[in-house]
Structure formats: structure tokens, C-alpha cells
């Protein structure tokens, strides 16, 4: 199973992810209807792309009274079936992260569906701030960067001399 990962040190707040996602979801360039948003915290100079990371608890799915949200067999994403959705918005209240939203233009909710396994935001992020990788091993590369730093700290050979 793969997951979206975010490296906020690489985000420049260009919002190409919002354009790519809204195109995928609505067929127009419309950041307001994007499931991923790049938040700008200007006073602390931090830029954070944020979206649904497909939690296991799946409050959205479990709160839906008409079973409009289900788990995609291939990607394991929680996906909204627009034909079943009745726009009651209970899922938007149940999700503690705010990552499922209501679109008044369609009367349905929308969220990240992982683009059927080829996330558009990942493909269009110019800096690699958003990546899509194996959920069990994708922390390892970050860990290894810090492991490397330990090699600066001291050399075992020198210490034992």
C-alpha cells in the first residue's frame, strides 16, 4: 500500500498541487475545489501542503448514513461515490482533520482519492515536496539522512585509538 508523504521544507507554496487536484476532481482549474491545499504560515516562513492521508479510523466512511464512501481495492483510498452521496455533510463534521469538504456547486462532498494510484499533485509538484511511496518503507529515507549525520559526530575508529 502506498501513501502520500509531505516534506514541508521543500514546499514553496506555488499551489501547482491545487491546480492539478482541482483539474482531476472538477475538470477546471479551481484551487477552492482542490482536496489538497498548500497553507502559507507567512510569519514563521512555513508552507504546508495538507490533505487526507487516508487514515485507518475512516470517520468519514463510518459516519456516512448512505455508505457513499468506500475503500478502493487497489489504492486503499477512501473514495466518495458521488451518485450515492446525498450531501448531508455529516462526514465533514466527523472528520477531525477537515480534509473532506462540501462543494455547494455540486451538492456533494469531495476528498483526496489518490487519483486511482497516480496522484496528480505528486506529478505536478515542482520541488518534490509531495511524494507517493510505500507506506511501510517510506520513512526509511528520512531516517537515513539523520543516520548519516551521526557519521559526522565521531568516527568509531578514531575513538578507539
Amino acid at each position, binding site marked *: 500500500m502506498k501513501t502520500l508523504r509531505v516534506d514541508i521544507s521543500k514546499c*514553496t*507554496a*506555488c499551489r*501547482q498541487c491545487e491546480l492539478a487536484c482541482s483539474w482531476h476532481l472538477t475538470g*477546471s*482549474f479551481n484551487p477552492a*475545489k482542490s482536496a489538497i491545499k498548500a497553507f502559507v504560515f507567512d*510569519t514563521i*516562513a512555513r508552507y504546508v501542503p495538507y490533505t487526507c492521508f487516508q487514515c485507518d479510523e475512516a470517520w468519514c466512511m463510518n459516519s456516512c448514513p448512505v455508505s457513499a464512501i468506500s475503500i478502493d481495492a487497489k489504492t486503499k483510498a477512501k473514495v466518495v461515490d458521488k451518485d450515492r452521496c446525498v450531501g448531508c455533510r455529516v462526514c465533514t463534521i466527523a472528520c477531525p482533520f477537515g480534509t473532506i469538504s462540501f462543494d455547494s456547486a455540486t451538492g456533494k462532498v469531495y476528498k483526496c482519492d489518490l487519483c486511482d494510484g497516480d496522484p496528480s499533485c505528486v506529478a505536478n509538484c515542482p520541488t518534490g515536496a509531495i511524494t507517493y511511496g510505500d507506506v511501510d518503507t517510506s520513512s526509511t529515507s528520512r531516517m537515513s539522512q539523520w543516520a548519516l549525520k551521526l557519521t559526522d559526530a565521531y568516527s568509531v575508529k578514531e575513538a578507539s585509538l
Partner: protein
Amino acid sequence: MSSSYTNRLLRVNLSDGSIKIEKINQDWQNKFIGGRGLATKYLVAETDPKIDALSKENKLIFVTGPLTGTPAPTGARYMIVTKSPLTGAVACSNSGGYFGSELKFAGYDMIIFEGAAEKPVYLSIYNDEVALKDASEVWGKGVWETEELLKSAEGDSEAKVAAIGPAGENKVLFSCIVNEKHRAAGRSGVGAVMGSKKLKAVVVRGTKGIGVNNPTQFFEDINRSKEILKDSPVTGKALPAYGTAVLVNVMNEYGGLPAYNFRKAQFENAEKVSGETLADTRLVANKACFACTIACGRVTKLPDEASEQYIVSTSSRNWKNAGEGPEYENTWAMAPLCGVDDIDALIKANWLCNDLGMDPISYGATLACAMELYDTGAIDEKTAGMNLAFGNAEALVKMAYATGYREGFGDYLAEGAYRLSKRFGHPEFFMGVKKQEFPAYDPRSVQGIGLAYATNNRGADHLRGYTIASEIMGIPEKTDPAATEGKAALTKLFQDATGVVDSSGLCVFSTFAIGLPEIVPMINSATGSNYSVDDALKIGERIWNMEHLYNLEAGISGSEDTLPKRILEGKIPEGPTKGMVNRLSEMLPEYYKLRGWDSSATPTEAKLKELDL
């Protein structure tokens, strides 16, 4: 059929409070594309070039291009077009950030403001809900506080705000309009026009989105451009790492970095305020405008001790917060040009310019002029209110406050270097053209940019014909900065091509890697137009001539296509460019000829007919 144009403009009359939606003139859109070209056409058609720029007869136009708001790389740009109170010429001032794209998502290509309000107002736009609202709570406040308060008042943290600060309200002649707190339509005093109309801000939120005419072709075109931008060492590496501030050392090594009000062309302490030093010691992040894959924006923080320095009590700002800038132009104008080498004073003065809403290039240049007046004894400490010696970092910061609020000597600085130098009996200390101060390249060391300065329609300016790309950086091809041969043709080509880029909604920095052969197809697939590169260049030439005709009618004649005596005759005193002057007379006649103008810079009948003007 879909298009990335919304084809709608908002016409807001501030005198009677009326707000109308109009269809964009399709004939003009075909002839001028959008952005700078289209808005200038509206200005030309609807106003008399002889009006007073600060009167209610002037119009203030916010305009986007067809690629603004699309994922075309650097598709963020919008322009402010109006008559400049600094120069009396046509003003087109470009800004990035997120405001322009948000205006498109709300469903508008352009806003035209007419007349003037009795009391301070702001325009609120949320898709089709457009209203003028009372701005008395924010009038008098800085841009940053204004943005926070108005977003709160509108109940929308994602709204985008373009505002003036105290400088615009006080009609400082080089005040500007700022969006997202740190991005500015900087030059030519467009903020003063907004202030004269008692318009404090525009707040916009759009949820309609835009489409494109041929999505498959469009994605192919933009992806190709994105690849080129990524692979280019300039747009893919140097600009994100160092911003434009990398040029401080470049121009200094060349002997083309004007210092001490152009008395010299090198600054002995350039390294202390260089892009490298900024990146190593004060930079905390780099940032992009909307849809930009370059991300040249500088985000900086002051060390704690520095954040306490030179504060004036009217400040309600938190100096410990991160802020944006400085880039090359503002670094140059407020440090080497003034002999200042204190990077923290520079950062703070730049932030003040952003929050007060004034052009740091003109501010630094005007201060440098004042410093030369002080140095020669034409003004003393009593007149200035403080020591204005070259190099005084405290003066750099304190005078920024004084200028924005028009207090004490700041009231004179607020008039710009041209009027300041005349007031104190030394017009020869004004370093600029058509009453606008020079930007950051010494025209004695770089011949072509001197011709560009002398002939650019909005006065001394580097962006409307950036020959530096060729003369210094070798983009697209290297030319010898010290040579005058071929510079007339080079300047015309840059000016015409830039007209297209400025009308498209893209950022000129995209042209460090892509050119019209990549940009024109993006416009076509986004809108359904069918321009060739030649068509586009002709449009660029048409835009240039239209702006020029406006200036001629405004009373700015060909005799003003010149450079100050210090540039034409005052040889650089030392360094690698010692002895150089700008040899304008070797370039200007050929330039007029190539433009199809007579010796008084008037376009011939034949040229006007050819351009359909």
C-alpha cells in the same frame, strides 16, 4: 467553448458607487492579448493623456493575462495600468503573488476604477457578490495589518488582498500597491493614484475556477515549458537558491554596480549585502508566486538584536516575524547606492517599504540623492532632521518611516529624486529618466541598458527592455556590454517581446529559459487564439507604439529620451570600467530608425498604419 479568459471586466465608479460587469472588448483582446496591452488600450481609449494623475479623471486598472491562474509555469501575474503621478507617463506596474489568479477564479479578467470616493472604501469581491465597503477602520494602517483586518472582516482567511499603506494614502509619488503583504506593483507611483481615489484595498475570493480551450494540447505545451524551466541552471538552480540578489556580486565585479548616487560603479562592501551573504545568514526559505516553478522569492528573518534597532514608535509590526525580500533591485537601491553596508538595516527598510507601500527602488534612489545633497552641503542636519551622510544605516530605516508618513524631511523625499534635486538647487544629482529614478545597472558600463533606460515608456526602468539578460548573462546570446553596435536592434527586440510576456500573465523571469516559441503556443491552447510568434512580436510592437503615443500626447517629447549629464559625460572614476560613459548618441538615431520614428521620436504614418494604430 472554454477559454482561460473570463471575458468579463468589473467597472467600479468610486464617485457614484456604481458597479457594472461588462464584456471585454473582443477586438481589443485580439489585438493586444490581455494584461498590459489590453489595459493600456482601455486607458488610451477612455482617458485624456493630459489629465492630472491624481485627479478623479484618472483611471486605475487591475488586469490579468490569459495565462494568469492556469498551471502554465509562472502564471501568477497581474498589472496595474494608469497614468503615473511621478512621471506623467503611462504606468504599467507588474505584481505576482496570488491576487491576480484569485481575481480570475472569481470570474474577472480586469477591474477598472473610475472617479474617486468621498470617504475611504475597499472593494470586496466574492464571485458575483461585489460591493464597496467602508474602509475607515483600516485607513491609516500598514498593508500587513490591513490585510489581516480585512480578511477577518470578510470572514475568509483565504481571501487575497491588494492594498495601499500610509504611503499611498499620503500620495507619496512612488507609493505602490502591495498584495500578500510583500508582493508589489512597485514602480511609478500607482499607489498614490489608488490613494487619491480613497480606495484602500481590493479583497477577492473566487471559487468559480477557469478552463482552457484545448486541454490536451495545453498540458503538452505547459509540461514542455515546465521541463525547460526545470533543466535550466538559471530558473532551476540559481534563482531558487539565491534569488535575483545573486546579481550584487556580478555587477560589482563588472564595475556596473552604481554606488554613492552614481558617483562610482563599484561598492567596496558589496559582499556584505550580496545574495550569497543573504542566503548564508538571513534566508529561512524561498517562496513562489502562484503556479511558479522557479520560486525566486526570498524569505528572511532578522536576528533578535537587529529586530530591536531603529524602531520608531508608530510601528505596530512584529519585527521578529519572517518577511520577504530583499531582492537585487531593492538591495542595490538601499545599500550600495546609499553607501550602506548593513544587511539588517536593509532588510528592515525593505519590510518598511512593503508595509508602508512604497517602491524601494525609488525610495533608495531618492535617499541617495538626498545624501549627495547633504554631502555637498546643499542641505544640512537641521533641514534633514538627522545626519544624512552616505552610509548611514539609521537614516535608511528612519527616513523610510518619515517618507511613508510624509513627516519632516520625509515630505520632500516623498516627491522623488527629480523634484528633490530641483528643490535644493542641484537638478544634476537626479539619476533617472522622465522623472523616474534609475534601476540597478550602471548605463556607463552597460551600453544597451542605457538605451533601454532612455527609451522605456514608463521612464528609467529595467523590466520593460531587460537587455542585461543578453549583455551580462548571455541569455539568449551574449553581447558585449561595452559595445554600442547592435544595441538598438537588441533593445527594440527585448522591448517588443516583453510586451507579449507582460500581456500573457506570465512572469518575465520565465524568459531566462523559455521564449515566445514556447509562450505563444500556451496562449493559443489556453484561449483558442491562433497567434504565430511573428503575430505576437507585432502585437508587442503595437503595444510599445501605443504607450509611446500616449506619452507624446501627455507632453513627454523625444527630447526626454536622454540620460543625465553624469551618465553621458561623467566618466566612471575607477575600477574595471574606469573612464566609461554611456554613448547614447551612437545608439539612439538607429533605434528611432528601426522603430519607424522620425528624429523627434514621432511614429511615421506608415508605421502607424502597419501596426493598425
